[in-house]
């Protein structure tokens, strides 16, 4: 059996780590599927889905490290006019950070509950805000 939902979140900064664990937990709790896996999948290319520990110091370290790896100012090939959009590709850093973080995570579901380590939280990682973002939660199981 498969169950699926879409969730929208509006970021408030260019870089923002938005905790979405409760959204995932809530959908899993109301699901008829009791055992299986939960996928959290993002529908964008300049943000990411990641699992990490929800501590302000770590969130800061994640931001700093990604900024060092992918600086704001660099001669990115993507920074040019894109006729297909009618806009400038001003978000190369967002694309590259998204590539580093990935666009999904998978969590086991046992007896109707997410099986997660006590330090784990699920984040929507915004790298190109401020934007409205959509992610999918899909549960596959029985």
């Amino acid at each position: 059996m498969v169950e699926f939902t879409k969730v929208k979140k509006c970021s408030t900064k260019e870089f923002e780590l938005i905790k979405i664990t409760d959204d995932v937990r809530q959908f899993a709790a109301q699901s008829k599927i009791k055992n299986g896996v939960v996928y959290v999948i993002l529908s964008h290319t300049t943000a990411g889905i990641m699992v990490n520990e929800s501590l302000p110091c770590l969130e800061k370290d994640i931001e700093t490290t990604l900024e060092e790896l992918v600086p704001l100012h660099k001669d990115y090939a993507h920074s040019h006019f894109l006729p297909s959009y009618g806009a400038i590709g001003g978000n190369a850093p967002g694309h590259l950070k998204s590539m580093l973080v990935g666009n999904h995570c998978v969590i086991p579901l046992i007896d109707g509950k997410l099986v997660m380590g006590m330090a784990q939280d699920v984040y929507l990682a915004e790298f190109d805000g401020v934007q409205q973002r959509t992610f999918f939660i899909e549960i596959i199981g029985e």
Partner: protein
Amino acid sequence: MVIDVHVHPAFYEPVCGDPKRVSLRKGVMGYDLMSPFPLELVEKQMAFAGVDKLVLLGEDCAAEGGDVLSNEEISRIVALDPTRFIGFATVDPNRPDALEILRYAFGTLKLRGLKLHPAKQQFYPNDPKFFPIYELCLSYNVPITFHCGMSWQPNTLLKYSHPEVFEEIAVRYPQLRINLAHFGFPWVLETAAIILKYPNVYADTACCYMDCPEQFFEQLFFKLMGPLWVEHNIADKILFGSNNPRFRPARIKRGLEYQPFSEETLAKILGENAVRFLGLEVNGNG
């Protein structure tokens, strides 16, 4: 106060209820892959960028679908948050009833400026048959933003939007406040000459950057121009404009803040000049 004088609210959800109309608007305005977003997002983008007010521009092109972003739609958005939004009217000046449309836009809808797009609407702004429009704007004490220079919209011709074609209007109507949008790109030096010479003419920063705003504004204001040209000559004549949704206000603003302008000059560019251009010092800040 920070004012973005150049925003096209083509994808604000309150004016995107009809998918066919949105599709027509996208085609006419050249926004192929963009899609509607809620007003909540605009508020958050403004908060993040540190922008207090947006000047919202409509679009009317009689030869291409008419008013694809109409005066009524601009007025409707402004009514949702008049503290944040300032609406400009649009009209294709080739319409025989252009003056009537504008009287309604200024008098009834209370729109506070006019946007004309000579390249799209395909008219020479210095043709005397359009002078009554400028006189009407003067009678309502509202400014005009003219598209100037290159446009990414389809069916737009550069010959109608060279900075030179606006000079005669500046001379003939010295009390008419004029903004040459996009800093007239690629004719940025010609635009600089006009805003330097005519006290009633401004230029906005909604330029078509081709690298990133930081690099582009450095090239424009400190390489193509001498390093003190803005600071000592045209600091009072430059308006912060983003051309959103093509470019993001936060990024254009950051590109300007990155430049070695004095604090005073940056404050003028980001908002003080716009207060004067828009006539807010007379009409209040609402």
